C-alpha cells in the first residue's frame, strides 16, 4: 500500500552542550556491596565435628553440586528456598554475641534474631544486610543415590551392553574418578566405606568370588527401593501445590452434556404427586421434592393447578440427578496416582539420565498401577469426547493454546497488520469504486493487452 511521503516529525536532538550535572545527594553513602556475601543455611543438629561441605556430582544431572557430609549421619543435600524475584526481600544478619545470647550461635536462629533486631533492642552496627533472600536447607539424602552415577552406564550406548560384576573397590574407584572429593572422603572416613557397602547391597545383585563380594546394579532392586521411598513420600499426601497440579487436574472428570429426561418419567412422577395432592399429604422423601410438597399443601383446593406446577419442578429434579459425572473416581485411584507422581519425581530428581530408559517402563508397568492406567485411559477418552462436544464459540480459546510459537505469532501479527491496512484502504474507497468492483467484467480484456506498457516516467 502506498504510504504518505511525509517524514516522521523531526525529533529534538539532545543538545550536546548541556552540561551533565553530577547527581549530588545529601544522604550518607552506603558502603559498596560485598562480592562474597554470607549465605544463610539451616543445618542439621548434633552433627559430628568433621562435618563438611563437599562437591560431588549430582546423581541426576552429573553436574558438580554441594552436599553436606557428616561421618555419622551421612549425606545431606541443600535445597535453596528463595523468594519470588519481584518480592523485595533480604536478610538482616547480626552476630548473636552482640546480643549477649552466646548459646544461640546456630544459624537457625538468625532469622529470629533479625526479628528482634527490628524491634530495636540492640545495636545494628555489627549486623550485615544480605541482599539475597535465599535460605539453604540441608536435608538428608540417601547415599545410594550418590552411588548411582558410578553404577549406571556412562552413556546410552553402554546401557545396552550388560554391566559387569565389580568388586567394592572397583566401584569405589569408579566413584573416585567422578570427583576428587570422593577420594579424600573415602581416605579420611573408613566408616563411609561400610556405609557404601551396605547401601550397595540394597540395590545390587551380588556374587561371591572367593573372599570378595562382587556387585552389579540390579534394576528390579532399584525399582523396589524407589517404590518404597515413593510410598513413604506419598503416605501423608503430597504438598498442596503438587496435589493440585498432578492429582486433582489429572483426575478431573469432564462434565458431559446434561441430558433431558424422557417424558414418560416425568409423567409417572406427576401422577404420584397428584395422588399426594389429593390426599393432602406430607413431605416426599427426596430432598429435591420437598419444595413441591409446600406448594401442594398451600394450593390444596386447586389440584389441577398444583399438578401443573409440580410437573415442572419434578422434571427439574430429575435433570439434576442425571447431571452427575459419567465416570466416578474409585477411592483407590488417587493414592496410586500420588505414588506414581512421587516415583516420577524421585526418578527425575535423583536417577541418572542413562538409567531412565530402563527404569521408566519398569516403574510404570508395575502391576499395582494397572487399575490406574485403565482409569486414566477411560478419562482421556472422556476428555476427548467432551472436547469434541464443545461448542464452536470456544474454538477461539483453543486456537490460542497451541500458537506459542514466536514465528506463528509473528506471522499472525503480520497478517493482522495487513488486514488492518486493507481495511483502512477499503474504508477510504468511495462507494462508487466499491460498486465498480462488483461489475461483471467477464469478456473484457485488460487494457494492458491493448496498450503497450510504457516506461513509467514519460516526459
Amino acid at each position: 500500500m502506498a504510504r504518505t511521503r511525509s517524514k516522521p516529525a523531526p525529533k529534538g536532538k539532545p543538545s550536546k552542550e548541556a552540561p551533565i550535572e553530577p547527581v549530588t545527594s545529601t544522604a550518607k553513602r552506603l558502603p559498596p556491596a560485598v562480592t562474597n556475601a554470607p549465605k544463610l543455611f539451616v543445618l542439621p543438629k548434633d552433627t559430628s565435628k568433621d562435618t563438611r561441605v563437599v562437591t560431588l556430582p549430582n546423581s541426576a544431572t552429573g553436574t558438580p553440586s554441594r552436599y553436606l557430609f557428616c561421618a555419622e549421619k551421612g549425606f545431606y543435600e541443600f535445597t535453596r528456598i528463595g523468594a519470588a524475584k519481584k518480592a523485595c526481600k533480604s536478610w538482616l544478619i547480626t552476630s548473636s554475641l552482640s546480643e549477649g545470647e552466646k548459646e544461640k550461635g546456630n544459624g537457625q536462629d538468625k532469622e529470629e534474631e533479625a526479628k528482634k533486631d527490628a524491634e530495636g533492642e540492640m545495636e545494628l552496627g555489627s549486623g550485615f544486610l544480605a541482599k539475597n533472600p535465599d535460605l539453604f536447607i540441608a536435608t538428608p539424602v540417601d547415599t545410594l543415590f550418590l552411588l548411582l552415577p558410578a553404577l549406571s552406564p556412562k552413556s546410552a550406548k553402554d546401557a545396552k551392553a550388560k554391566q559387569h560384576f565389580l568388586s567394592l573397590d572397583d566401584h569405589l574407584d569408579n566413584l573416585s574418578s567422578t570427583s576428587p572429593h570422593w577420594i579424600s572422603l573415602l581416605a579420611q572416613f573408613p566408616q563411609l566405606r561400610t556405609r557404601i557397602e551396605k547401601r550397595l547391597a540394597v540395590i545390587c545383585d551380588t556374587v561371591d568370588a572367593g573372599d570378595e563380594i562382587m556387585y552389579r546394579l540390579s534394576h528390579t532392586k532399584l525399582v523396589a527401593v524407589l517404590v518404597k521411598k515413593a510410598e513413604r513420600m506419598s503416605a501423608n499426601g503430597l504438598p498442596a501445590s503438587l496435589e493440585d497440579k498432578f492429582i486433582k487436574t489429572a483426575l478431573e472428570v469432564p462434565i458431559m452434556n446434561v441430558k433431558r429426561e424422557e417424558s414418560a418419567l416425568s409423567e409417572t412422577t406427576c401422577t404420584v404427586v397428584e395422588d399426594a395432592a389429593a390426599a393432602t399429604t406430607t413431605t416426599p422423601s427426596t430432598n429435591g421434592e420437598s419444595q413441591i410438597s409446600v406448594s401442594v399443601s398451600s394450593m390444596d383446593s386447586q389440584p389441577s393447578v398444583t399438578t401443573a406446577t409440580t410437573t415442572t419442578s419434578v422434571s427439574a429434579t430429575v435433570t439434576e440427578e442425571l447431571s452427575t459425572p459419567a465416570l466416578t473416581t474409585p477411592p483407590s485411584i488417587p493414592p496410586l496416582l500420588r505414588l506414581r507422581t512421587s516415583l516420577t519425581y524421585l526418578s527425575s530428581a535423583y536417577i541418572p539420565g542413562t538409567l531412565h530408559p530402563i527404569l521408566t517402563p519398569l516403574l510404570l508397568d508395575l502391576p499395582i498401577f494397572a487399575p490406574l492406567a485403565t482409569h486414566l485411559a477411560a478419562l482421556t477418552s472422556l476428555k476427548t469426547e467432551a472436547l469434541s462436544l464443545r461448542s464452536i464459540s470456544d474454538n477461539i480459546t483453543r486456537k490460542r493454546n497451541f500458537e506459542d510459537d514466536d514465528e506463528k505469532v509473528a506471522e499472525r501479527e503480520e497478517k493482522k497488520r495487513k488486514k488492518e491496512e486493507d481495511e483502512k484502504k477499503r474504508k477510504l474507497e468511495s462507494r462508487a469504486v466499491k460498486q465498480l468492483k462488483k461489475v461483471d467484467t467477464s469478456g473484457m480484456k485488460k487494457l494492458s493487452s491493448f496498450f503497450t506498457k510504457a516506461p513509467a516516467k514519460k516526459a
Partner: protein
Amino acid sequence: MLEARLTQASLLKKVVDAIKDLVQDCNFDCNDSGIALQAMDNSHVALVSMLLRSDAFEPFRCDRNIALGINLSSLTKVLRAAQSDDVLTIKAEDAPDVVNLVFESAATDRISEYDIKLMDIDQEHLGIPETEYAATIKMPAAEFQRICRDLSALSESVSIECAKDGVAFKCTGDIGSGSVQLRSHTDVEKSENNVEIDLTEPVSLTFSLKYLVNFCKASGMSDQVKLCLSNEVPLLVEYGLQSNSYLRFYLAPKIGDEE
C-alpha cells in the same frame, strides 16, 4: 518547484469528481507542458487519461518533472473547501512531501490554504498509440449521459452499433430490451446540440454500462462528448476541455461470450 494557477477552481473540482469514483489514488505527473494523469480502475478494464496543458493555467511554472501521488478522496475533501469561482493555486517543491493548495476568493479577499500529504504510488503507465478509429461520434454530453442512464436500468451492457444511417445503442435485459437511435443532426442556433457521425466502416461493440455511467460523471466538463470506436479496440470517450486539454476514458469492449 511547481506553481500552477487556475482562474477557476471548478475545473479541477470537476475533473477530480469525474475520476474519483473510478480510481482511488493516482499520480499527477507535472512537467513543463502541463499536468497529466493516467490511471486504471481496480479491474484494469478502464483507463482514465487527463491532460491539463500549461495554457490552461496562468501562470504555469514547473522546473522539474514531479509526480504528485494523491489519494483522490483526500483531494476531494480539500477541494470541497474551494468555491467554484475561487482562484486555485497548486504548489509543490521539487521533491515534495506535500502538495499545497491555495484558494483565493477575489470577491471577499479570503485566502485559504491546504496541504495534502503525498503518497508513493506504484502504477503501470501505458503507452496509448494514436489510433485511426473506424467510427467517431460527437454528441451532446448530456445526451450520452441520458442514454447510458436509461439503458443501465435495463441491462448491464450496451451494444453500440454504428452504421451509415446512424448510431444505435441497444440493450437487452431481464425485463425487456431497449434501443436509442441517433442520426446526424445539426442545430444551427446551438452548435452544442450537434450530433456528428464520422464513419469509415460499420462497427458494433458491446460495453459495460456501469462503466459508461461512471464516465458520464464528467459530463459537466464539456458540452460535447466524443466517442471513438474500432473493432477489437477499447472505446475512447473524450471530453474536451479548454485550451486543448482533455479528459479521456478508455474502456475495454466485451468480447466473446455475448449472449
